[in-house]
């Protein structure tokens, strides 16, 4: 395989989990909720998927990869959604501050991830590293036949199912937001909840649904990382700052899921670029890892300078809406 092929594969590998997180956060932010708990929800999704697979594989003699796959997927979705639900109850029903609640969720979620990741095997009486090889193999299963095509197969078809799911999800999300009645209502809720309320839209319900489903999607990002990227193992803090990269990608994509697809590829590429530039010292490599954030800041500044309405964050992002307080 050529260097470029490997580079693209690696970039996609980095990008997919950011893409899930960004998609979840786009959906959430479109409802006006700025959920800074994305990293937490991704951790929760990752560890839940891993734990489900681990317990399943420990419980049966010969684990079926497919069953493990389904269980892990459901657990990750549920855990991410739980994170979104905690955030929703706090900010929507109990009217707590969005930034603070999100950060608390991140603390909690990372704690849950690292705690269980580090002590799962011990809690269940075993020793050593967690490994869920059978389930991970299902996540890592490449497309048959297509992946055998030279070069093209490597670049396009050599990934597990979650990679394709992320892209399909972006397209579906984009169509949902732009082509359906519900999507229109959701955008109105995020832009101007008072107007949406006057038009008879249940603002609170939309905020809840978007945030909970957004959390579930972010959870898949964590699942991708533990299963396809890490092959069913856990390293504490191995997930790194990918959760914040997902938040950055939302800004970079200017709240559009389709932009997030190529944006995630770009972020992934920037993230590993240092490995492919010859002659870099180890120190300079670290500077290269700064690039996704620097690029995001530049995009943020440019959009505020240009003041183009479509590129701005949803108008009511970060704000509460309560009818009686108008």
């Amino acid at each position, binding site marked *: 395989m050529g260097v470029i092929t490997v580079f693209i594969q690696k970039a996609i590998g980095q990008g997919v989990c950011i893409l899930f997180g960004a998609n979840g956060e786009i959906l959430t932010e479109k409802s006006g909720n700025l959920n800074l708990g994305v990293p937490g929800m991704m951790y929760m999704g990752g560890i839940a998927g891993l734990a489900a697979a681990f317990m399943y594989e420990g419980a049966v003699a010969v684990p079926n990869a497919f069953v493990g796959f389904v269980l892990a997927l459901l657990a990750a979705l549920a855990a991410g959604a739980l994170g979104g639900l905690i955030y929703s109850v706090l900010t929507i029903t109990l009217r707590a501050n969005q930034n603070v609640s999100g950060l608390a969720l991140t603390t909690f979620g990372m704690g849950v991830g690292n705690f269980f990741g580090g002590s799962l095997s011990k809690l269940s009486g075993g020793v050593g590293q967690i490994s869920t090889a059978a389930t991970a193999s299902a996540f890592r299963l490449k497309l048959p036949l297509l992946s055998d095509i030279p070069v093209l197969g490597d670049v396009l078809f050599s990934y597990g199912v979650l990679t394709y799911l992320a892209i399909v999800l972006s397209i579906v999300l984009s169509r949902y937001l732009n082509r359906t*009645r519900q999507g229109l*209502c959701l*955008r109105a809720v995020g*832009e101007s909840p008072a*107007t949406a309320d006057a038009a008879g839209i249940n603002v609170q319900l939309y905020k809840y649904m978007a945030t909970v489903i957004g959390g579930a999607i972010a959870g898949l990002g964590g699942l991708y990382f533990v299963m396809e990227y890490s092959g069913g193992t856990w390293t504490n803090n191995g997930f790194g700052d990918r959760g914040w990269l997902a938040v950055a990608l939302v800004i970079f994509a200017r709240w559009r899921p389709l932009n997030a697809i190529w944006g995630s590829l770009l972020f992934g590429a920037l993230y590993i670029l240092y490995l492919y530039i010859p002659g870099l010292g180890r120190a300079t490599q670290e500077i290269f890892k700064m690039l996704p954030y620097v690029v995001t800041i530049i995009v943020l500044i440019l959009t505020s300078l240009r003041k183009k309405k479509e590129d701005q964050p949803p108008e009511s992002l970060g704000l509460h809406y309560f009818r009686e307080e108008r």
Partner: protein
Amino acid sequence: MKDANAIELRNISKRFGKVIANDRINLSVRDGEILAILGENGSGKTTLMNMISGIYYPDEGQIFVHGEEVTIRSPKDAFPLGIGMIHQHFKLVDVLTAAENIVLGLSGPTKLDITAVATRISKLAHKYGFDIDPFKKIYEMSVSEKQTVEIVKMLYRGANILILDEPTAVLTPQETDALFAVLRNMRDAGNAIIIITHKLNEVLALSDRVAVLHKGKYIGTVETKDATVESLTEMMVGKKVKLDIERPDPVDPELRLKVKDITCVNKEGVITLNHASFTAFGGEILGIAGVAGSGQKELLESIAGLTPKESGEIDYYPPNKPMQEISKLSAVEISKLGIKLSFVPEDRLGMGLVGPMDMIDNMMIRSYKKGGFFWADRRAPRTLAEHIISELEVATPGVTTPVGKLSGGNVQKVLVGREISSAPIVLMVAYPVRGLDINSSYTIYRLLNEQKKRGVAVLCVGEDLDVLLALCDRILVLCDGRVTGIVDARTATKEEIGLLMTHTGKGARKDG
């Protein structure tokens, strides 16, 4: 049972606390008719219409729609009855297109076929003569285009009784003509239309009948063809009310402020103040009259350095000191130069005071810069706060109670008390007694008169002509941002001022 009346109101009353906004009002509008509701600010027009559209619920009385009595608790109840109201503040989402705003919240198939929506909108537009681009985003639209979207939104939802609250307030003459043409088409198609306004020429140009309200009471309804500007003015401003407000004669008035040819343009590019000129003298109260939004706010704020001016000059003449030009100065510079200009803004708790802060902190808005480099002096403001409480009889638990918790009258006493405490040379007050009860109002009049006797030049924007006529020495009248006249308050009549207020210089506009 068939009834020709689209809407009939019987004995509708609405109170807000002690204030009676609507007092046993009877009114009807027929299908295929344009009814104008005429009245000054605060006459209860909007409150009345809000009860038809479900924003408020009447305390007493009955509403009939096409002869059947109805209960309207919320806008959701008004929709199925075919009632649609277009408010002064549009409820539209900026980044969405016209078509998306129009269809927002309506049920239907999951997939939104926006082309079909646009086709239906175009059909409606064609039927009534609207000019609308369904795919244009709201933020790219002019005010009149946004208004069109609001009207089409109502029609799209099947409204056949349309209420428009001051629809021409924000429109240019050409846009007004276009709107009127559309409204006539809608009337001819059998819809009932109610338009709230205080512009007489528009009433005469557009409506079939006119209902007049005055201070919450229903005065009467006349056929437009029988009405004249004079007859309507008389109904609208009501009989002269004798007010017992003291008015000392000015003692050696001295020039304090000269405003020359000030023009202001707002963010939307609309001219809000159009070559306004006047002078103000110490020892007199200059009243400023005009219908809401005629440029009063911009006039005061441009003097205070809070609104940028396109052109013109403002000269300030302090006693025994040389004249200073303040037109180029911002509020920051005015306060730095020690120019003794006090300002009681219209938005008391949004600009003049900070609601969640206590009286001491609010006194400090004006004085915190005094004294040394680091420390803010809190002792003098506390003394001032205590002084204001005892002098102006402010009802409050103490100086540390947040001012936002005080009643409207007490809030105003705190604000006026602070502004006059700095011994101003020019004092500007906007709507000083709005929302105040009689006793508090008289306290404010007394304070203004005290300042006048001290030789202060007082500028007082007001909405109640009876008060302005009884309190002021001269009255400047604004209309559409222009000064249409400055009259002697001792000799002028309400009708005279009423005409100046509605005088656009163009007379009644010709039909379509």
